[in-house]
């Protein structure tokens, strides 16, 4: 049984549908990368799995989200609360704003084990300090008593990770966990997450817009564009032979070497807003291969083996 299986997920917020047609599957011990530009629906996917859409006035209106055999779209809020923090941990994008600035960081981590493992105050504290040590935080016993503003961004992100891990979850969702951090710290945090998955046999959904991070750490990848998934598969397959032109362009954007004469590559244009999603294939206005059919017909997700792409001219098949 898969740890997480999302099928045909669609989300609506008021009258708009910012997310549709998202499917992926994740086994225990696996890492899946969800990549795409800002506004592609990565975070909405994470919020859907966490059941936190109501916070932004949204709801799941299509598809299923199955976590370890539990259908998340049909459980009650009380049951969901037991899973959140208990079996599914969330790591957010900006550690600077992710901790309550009025409370010491130790007790903020304690909350999780007290809530989900029924620990009393001293058990929770002991567990938190041990966990901080595991996350390579120096002098965890004194760090415990610090306030968030007294720590660096990288340290705060470790505290957020500690909160996500405190109740021994099975699944971690990391929503751009390194975007707000220094480059050197980014590498440390990504390595730390990779190690945690191995040591604790976790499953990890790693949301990022950095293709090189995906290449280094993930087993699987799902590429998203304008609120929908456009390609998914195993990392080696996708990187060796991307089938969707957008995936290919994204991979092309990874900088190589230190040459000053080669311009950094980008993709012309920007992701359209929800209100301006184009007809047919949503990528067609920016796609070099687009023809009339792309403007008129939405491409279907074609599955071959364990990979799939939604493109009328999927690369590698036509040739």
């Amino acid at each position: 049984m898969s740890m997480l299986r999302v099928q045909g997920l669609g989300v609506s917020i008021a009258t708009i549908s910012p997310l549709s047609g998202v499917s992926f599957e994740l086994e225990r011990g696996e890492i899946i990368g969800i990549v795409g530009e800002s506004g592609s629906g990565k975070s909405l996917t994470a919020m859907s799995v966490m059941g936190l859409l109501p916070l932004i006035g949204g709801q799941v209106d299509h598809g299923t989200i199955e976590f370890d055999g539990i259908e998340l779209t049909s459980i009650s809020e009380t049951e969901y609360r037991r899973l959140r923090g208990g079996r599914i941990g969330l790591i957010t994008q900006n550690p600077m704003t992710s901790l309550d600035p009025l409370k010491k960081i130790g007790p903020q981590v304690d909350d999780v084990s007290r809530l989900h493992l029924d620990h009393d105050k001293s058990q929770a504290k002991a567990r938190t300090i041990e966990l901080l040590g595991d996350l390579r935080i120096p002098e965890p016993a004194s760090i415990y008593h610090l306030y968030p503003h007294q720590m660096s961004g990288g340290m705060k992100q470790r505290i957020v990770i500690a909160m996500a891990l405190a109740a021994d979850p099975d699944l971690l969702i990391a929503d751009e966990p390194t975007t707000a951090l220094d480059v050197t710290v980014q590498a440390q945090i990504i390595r730390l997450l990779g190690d945690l998955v191995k040591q604790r046999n976790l499953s990890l959904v790693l949301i990022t817009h950095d293709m090189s991070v995906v290449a280094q750490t993930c087993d699987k990848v799902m590429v998203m564009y304008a609120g929908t998934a456009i390609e998914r598969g195993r990392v080696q397959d996708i990187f060796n032979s991307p089938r969707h032109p957008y995936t290919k362009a994204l991979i092309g954007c990874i900088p190589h070497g230190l040459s000053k004469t080669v311009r950094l590559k980008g993709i012309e244009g920007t992701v359209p807003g929800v209100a301006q999603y184009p007809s047919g294939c949503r990528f067609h206005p920016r796609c070099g291969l687009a023809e009339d059919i792309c403007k008129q017909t939405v491409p279907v997700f074609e599955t071959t083996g364990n990979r799939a792409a939604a493109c009328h001219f999927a690369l590698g098949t036509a040739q």
Partner: protein
Amino acid sequence: MILKYSIQRLLMIIPVSLAISVVIFLIVHLLPGDPIDNLIRVGSSPEDRIALTAKYGLDRPLITQYFLWIGQIMTGDFGQAIVLRRPVADLIAQNLPYSLQLGGLAFLFSSIVGIILGVIAWASRNTWGEQLVKGFILLGSTVPGFWLALLMILLFAVNLGWFPVSGARDWTALVLPVLTIGFGGIALVARVTRVALLDVGKQDFITLLHAKGLSRTAILFKHLIPHALLPVVTILALRIGWILGGAVTVEFVFGRPGLGSLLIRALGQRDYPVVQGSLLMLALAVMIGTLIGDIAQAAMDPRIREATK
């Protein structure tokens, strides 16, 4: 740490009070007219007037008068009222308890009910409940106190006869003034509380608290409200001074004694020592209010404590 900060801030009151005393003194003395107009008998000769002016030292240069006055204050002597012919300290001591009673009760009433209403407005956002509270907030911030006071007197005192029309005989006479002043206060506190809650609710750490599996109630009481109270404490602190001296119109309508009433009467008579003395008291109240607010914020927010080290 917080103690040291409080003492520092407390000491700051001395220089600030001195600066304020100059401003008070100048404004009062630069007003046209003088207290002699109110003292002198009709038909007195210009010589009588000069003698009377000299008797109260009003013929000396302003700067000398100022230093005489401030010198007196330093020894705890607020001087003698010129028109009312009593020690200013007595007049203040007589009126202050009424202001404290009314102000204190109105303050407590508006803080508690205001915060509760603000939380209700936030919790019922996007429903008719929020619209109801918002309507109340609009009404409370725009209806003038003296007008509301008159309506209250008409309904509760004249028609229903539940409370006395005016005066300060017993606690029943406090109910209508407290309600009147409290009404505007509730609206202010509710508005600030609601906006602060909406603001804090959007922050990332609230999302993460939900992701930890905490219940909505726990998040509201342990995290959202403590944050929302920070700006509320600031405006409440500013209101402490206002509520003592600014309740003049309400005191007037209800015929209550109080610092505000004393000040208005003394101003009309240009009774310099009384005006100066009560203004200084009010300035002190504003400073102490601000000080309490700042200390409360430092106690609530570790970031502010850090900045005050």
